[in-house]
């Protein structure tokens, strides 16, 4: 097929330098999850909590006054809170690397108990060297997450270059990557896929739906994500998480990248 060979050669390399070159901007302009500055928060204002569809913003009765809590694991990045906040306590941001190993790290916490850097319980790097095979299961997504997962294999992100592959058979898979809030009809096939995977195996909840249900959890046909159905090793909120966040989470699993978010704070 000479015309396409020529075509490909003329097109040249289209792949981003990231994550090799740390500062290469992967997603200019894309809004991430809102940034929270509690000292700007005004007493007795509930404007943000009222517009938060998935209930990511809660009001906690503290000693004397009320305190705002944010669970980034529930946030769908709709930006309504940033538009409703009168004091800019919540602002739009381009923060995207929210992949974490402990679900609690997605909940904004006042004080940061400095935890020791976490190693994954089973050292995945020892098991697989630097390569990883993924089986994806759509357990009831809106297809936004799939669209971004498919993008990982386009020439721009070119996931293969990082030694990460999607595999059709669960028998060859190291990682089960789940999207969607888990419908009653997908629960069975999801468990079957997991059971067909050889040990050791890992589970990643990709997208706010899979992390907590997000905008589509609960109701008459959905669970609230993967938690309680399978043991989750990495949580990646975002609706959908952008492809860079997905790659970062995969590298985090391979111990090839550091976790950026702890106690709902971005690492300095």
């Amino acid at each position, binding site marked *: *097929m000479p*015309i*396409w*060979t020529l*075509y*490909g050669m003329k*097109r040249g390399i289209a792949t981003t330098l990231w994550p090799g070159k740390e500062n290469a901007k992967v*997603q*200019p*302009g*894309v*809004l991430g999850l809102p940034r929270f500055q509690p000292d700007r928060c005004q007493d007795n204002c509930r404007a943000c909590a009222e*517009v938060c*569809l998935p209930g990511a913003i809660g009001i906690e009765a503290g000693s004397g006054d009320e305190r705002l809590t944010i669970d980034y694991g529930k946030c*769908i*990045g*709709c*930006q*309504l809170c940033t*538009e409703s906040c009168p004091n800019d306590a919540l602002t*739009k941001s381009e923060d995207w690397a929210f992949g974490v190993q402990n679900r609690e790290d997605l909940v904004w916490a006042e004080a940061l108990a400095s935890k020791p850097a976490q190693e994954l319980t089973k050292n995945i790097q020892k098991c697989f060297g630097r390569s990883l095979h993924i089986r*994806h*299961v*759509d357990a*009831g*997504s*809106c*297809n*936004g997450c*799939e*669209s*971004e*997962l*498919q*993008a990982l*294999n*386009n*020439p*721009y992100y070119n996931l293969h270059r990082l030694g990460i592959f*999607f595999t*059709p058979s669960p028998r060859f898979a190291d990682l089960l990557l789940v999207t*969607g*809030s888990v*419908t*009653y*009809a*997908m629960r*069975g*096939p999801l468990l079957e*896929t997991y059971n067909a995977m050889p040990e050791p195996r890992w589970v990643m909840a990709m997208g706010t739906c899979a992390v907590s249900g997000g*905008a*589509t959890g*609960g*109701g*008459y*046909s*959905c*669970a609230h994500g993967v938690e309680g159905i399978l043991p989750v090793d990495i949580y990646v909120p975002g*609706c*959908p998480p952008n492809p860079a966040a997905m790659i970062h989470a995969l590298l985090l699993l391979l111990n090839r990248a550091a976790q950026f978010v702890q106690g709902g704070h971005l690492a300095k």
Partner: protein
Amino acid sequence: MRGTTERALPPNEVPQACQHLVEKGARLQMAYAWFPESGGHPEVLYLADQGPYQPFSLLRCRLSEGSDGLPSLATNIPLLGWYEREMTDLCGISFQGHPELRPLVLHEGAHPPIPPLDPRYPKGEMIPYTEEPWDLPPVEGSDVQMLPFGPVRGDVLESAQIVFYYVGEAILHCHPRLFFKHRGMEKRFEGLSPALGTLIAERISGVDSVAHALAFCQAVETASQCEVPERARYLRTILAELERLYNHLHYLGHLCHTTTLKVGEAQGKLLAEQCKQLNGVFTGSRFLRGLLKPGGLRRDLDLRALAARLRALEPDIAGYMAALENTNSHLDRLITTGHLPHQTAFDQGATGPIKRASGIQHDLRCDHPYAAYGRLSMEIPLRTEGDAHARSQVRMEEIRNSLALLLRALEDLPEGPVDTEIAWPTGGEGLGWCEGPRGSIYYCVHFDATGKLARVKVKSASFSNWRVFPFTVHDTNMMDYAINEASFGLTMAGCDR
């Protein structure tokens, strides 16, 4: 309902009235039911398109005490078949004489105590479900094999199961089992304010976020009799076309994947990625989410540099499509594959590029203009071959037209406000529509007495086209299946909701 001319009828007059509409040249678009009062009887509504610039026609039929459902219309108007089964599953309405009396939206083994769309259904309670054998067509003949494929399929695909009945390479019959992803999205609108409802609409089908949000917002605006400012109309048009652009480019890339044209796949997906990145740069969201709201847009957009970026992409896109049309190995796999005759497309309810590739000239953007489409001239591509090649050609033509529309709209983009005050109507109703990348999308919105959403019906393009698709698979061969499916460009999330 605003946006329609409506007529209320008793159950026994519905078949004749629908038949009459069809004879006058109208095409039924959807049917659905809702419960006007909690604990009361449901009302069934039929929506028909009466032709360009004509108001949509709505037939309403309130069931009453002692009535045991409605006569099924699926034999004479086959495209209604799925809507009737959906109403049986979700609203508990029976349709007498239905030719395919098996569950559709809820799987065998799902036994809700009362229909899930009944307002009395306990909020947040999951349907009791135990796996039960499926109601599948029986296999006859010792050579015939049955292969259930899915719901977890190869690559990164949405969940669905295709049951093949085949002999060797030849597929005798194809029976898709869908709705694994039924998330009960329509129910989620209940009790929300329309502002939050937009977020749900954006998540019916992620790659059609704008189309769904737009149809929803327009339904709310029609119900509220709200006029959206001119700049917002243009911006909405631009967003909708940006959505079509990245979807269609991805479609071409994926089609190449199935015909094993590797460089073509890479290039199509790269172009789609570049369009998504433009979306990100200019709107903050690769899926163009978080921008629409009833009354206009949530914020103004600075699109001054967009035209230049699109013009820079244009030659790449044109060159790519020309190369595809010059590649015999690719075309060989598409031409005559998955043939959909005009009559089947019409009867079974095909929509969007699928219908336009089978000779049905219809596009909501022209026939019932919304946003700024009425102010912009455009051409609607039409093919009559009805095969995979025609379906891809229609999309290529639409890519060209989208680019032209975008450049035109950016040039004409007026200054001014992007939103207007809107008061939620108490007890109002409205119809909204949009021609999404995959075809027609309709939203019917019913408000309650406090101005909250009482019922939102979503008709997605993929629901229509999944119904049609198997007709192009029966009596074909396994080798062509993946190509044919890709040539339809379906989503599961939109279909299953």
